[in-house]
């Protein structure tokens, strides 16, 4: 177990190193941010002076080594725009809002998916399954930003039930969370539904029935634990798409999370902030995948052996 964890930790560090390097390269390819920061009336001398101040006049390799050296000491570099502030501090400042929205959306989506699929499989009410998958496909055919705007149109503009944007209260959380939840719902509902149907054909189900188990008990205690495995596998992979979707939803609803910060930072070429944001995303991604691995070990005894 210790060896396994050690190996995973090394993999995690390697992943983060790759993310840091790639974002650094892309950041430099886009050129110096000095001109953008100083505005269109700046003289070439002023721009050159800022380049020197930010260190952009040095060779790329030196900048890279300097950046890496800073990272090792916990220095993620200051924002280019807000020059007194650490870029990572800005990210950390926005992180809680993103976590709240992401966790609310994801857990609501998972809850809806498990409730719906289990209800259908326990009652064997198959017409409802077609309704669920049909509605899910319709939701999936709409991009998040469009679905979000539809929600605003209906719930805010027409009905006036909810504020259209902002943060800080439960009411403002509802629509962005619902946008994320419905998108995640169909992904997991379809996965779990398929997994349960597939597991239902296995021989061990017949063995369970032969010893007198009820069909409901077979779903809950026999096929569900097996069906969780493919769901968890895809959950780990799906997380990247999920974090990407979060950025879009935050911007649609003006939710002051990391995604909004990173988009603004990208437009103003504040690459220190973009890099810190991406490192944070990578850390979240790696941590979530470690969690999935850990859960996998709990559910599947064959994995536990490694």
């Amino acid at each position: 177990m210790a060896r396994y964890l050690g190996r995973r930790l090394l993999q995690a560090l390697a992943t983060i190193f790759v993310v840091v390097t790639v974002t650094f390269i892309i950041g430099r390819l886009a050129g110096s941010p000095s001109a953008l920061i100083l505005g269109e009336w700046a003289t070439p001398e002023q721009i050159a002076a800022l380049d020197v101040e930010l260190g952009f006049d040095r060779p790329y390799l030196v900048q890279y080594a300097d950046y890496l050296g800073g990272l090792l000491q916990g220095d993620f570099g200051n924002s280019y725009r807000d020059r007194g502030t650490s870029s990572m501090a800005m990210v950390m400042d926005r992180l809680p809002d993103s976590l709240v929205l992401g966790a609310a959306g994801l857990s609501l989506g998972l809850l809806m998916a498990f409730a719906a699929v289990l209800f259908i499989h326990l009652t064997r009410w198959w017409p409802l399954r077609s309704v669920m998958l049909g509605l899910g496909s319709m939701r999936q055919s709409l991009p998040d930003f469009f679905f979000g705007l539809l929600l605003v149109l209906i719930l805010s503009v027409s009905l006036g039930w909810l504020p259209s944007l902002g943060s800080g209260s439960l009411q403002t959380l509802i629509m962005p969370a619902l946008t994320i939840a419905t998108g995640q719902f169909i992904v997991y509902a379809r996965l779990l539904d398929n997994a349960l149907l597939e597991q239902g054909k296995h021989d061990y189900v017949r063995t369970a029935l032969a010893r007198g188990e009820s069909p409901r008990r077979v779903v809950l205690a026999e096929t569900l634990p097996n069906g969780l495995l493919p769901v968890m596998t895809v959950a780990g992979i799906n997380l990247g798409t999920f974090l990407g979707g979060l950025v879009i939803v935050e911007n649609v609803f003006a939710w002051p999370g990391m995604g909004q910060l990173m988009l603004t930072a990208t437009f103003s070429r504040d690459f220190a902030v973009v890099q810190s944001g991406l490192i944070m995303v990578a850390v979240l991604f790696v941590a979530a995948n470690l969690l999935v691995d850990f859960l996998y070990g709990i559910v599947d005894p064959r994995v536990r052996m490694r």
Partner: protein
Amino acid sequence: MSTEPILDVQDLTVVYQDDRGRDVPLVEDISFTVLPREVLCIVGEAGSGKSVTMLAVMGLLPPELHITSGSIRYRGEELVGMPEKRRRALRGKEMGMVFQDPMTALNPVKSVGSQIGRALSVHNRRLAWGDRDQRVAELLASVGVPQPKRRSRLYPHEWSGGMRQRAVIAMAIANSPSLLVADEPTTALDTTVQAQVMEALETARETSDAAMVMITHDLALVAQVADRVAIMYSGSFVETGSVYEIFDSAQHPYTKGLLASILTEYSDTNAAFAIPGSPPAPSQRPEGCAFAPRCTSAGKDAACLERPALLPMPGSGERQRAAACHHPGTELLNAPYAAPAAERAGAR
């Protein structure tokens, strides 16, 4: 032996609905009885309907198969149309089942012990955990699993195939059923452990005083364990009788062919006798005698275009001795040898 039968199946027909909505019979008008402590072996080729018959008895038919007629009585109680709840109370308590493939018969994410334990607690909600574990260990020990306490905590992938089948047997006999159904219990095992597992099954059956219906195509095994034998071909029984009657004086050409296919020291050649052709698919069974196209009986004639009924043989004893053939007892034209079949199969 005039005791009440444990299992009484009459005119059972099981159909499969094909893509065009037509009923394709998989099992047609099957009748048999099993007395207490009796062992009935159902013998036949793959696809002849052996497993379907016994899944119908267990009430475990897959949803696409239906019983269209007939009756299945367990200790006089009709099972066809019985409310599912009552049926469930019988399943695993009164009748236990051992499946063919032990590699897939157990749930991979639950410990073996917990799965056997469920067989106990599902029929006895008040069973304490400690008592349950104790009983599971006893059951495993009784089917020859060493270190049962330790092993019961392990998962199926940590068990060998032969050991897993012992666990499935332990599960089947957990509540001392009166009827055991074993669907080719040793076919999927290594030949080296087949005999040991079969011995464990026989011991378990004797301990729980159960009758058993065993599906197999291993005639040597039949000779060892069967009291009675039913030969199944293309969805119907073609011959039934005691193990001695079947092995000593087979009447149906299919039975004769099966017995002739056993390769032993009495064989004249090194090659086993093979019945020509292959059985028809359920949707393509011929109008008359289903076996006629493959039949090499000397008596084959125009009468074989009619389906033969399973008729009692003249002079049969108290239990039914029957064959579904228009010309029972006729020699095969290509029979390779004449040594007594019972000796050849090594009957007890």
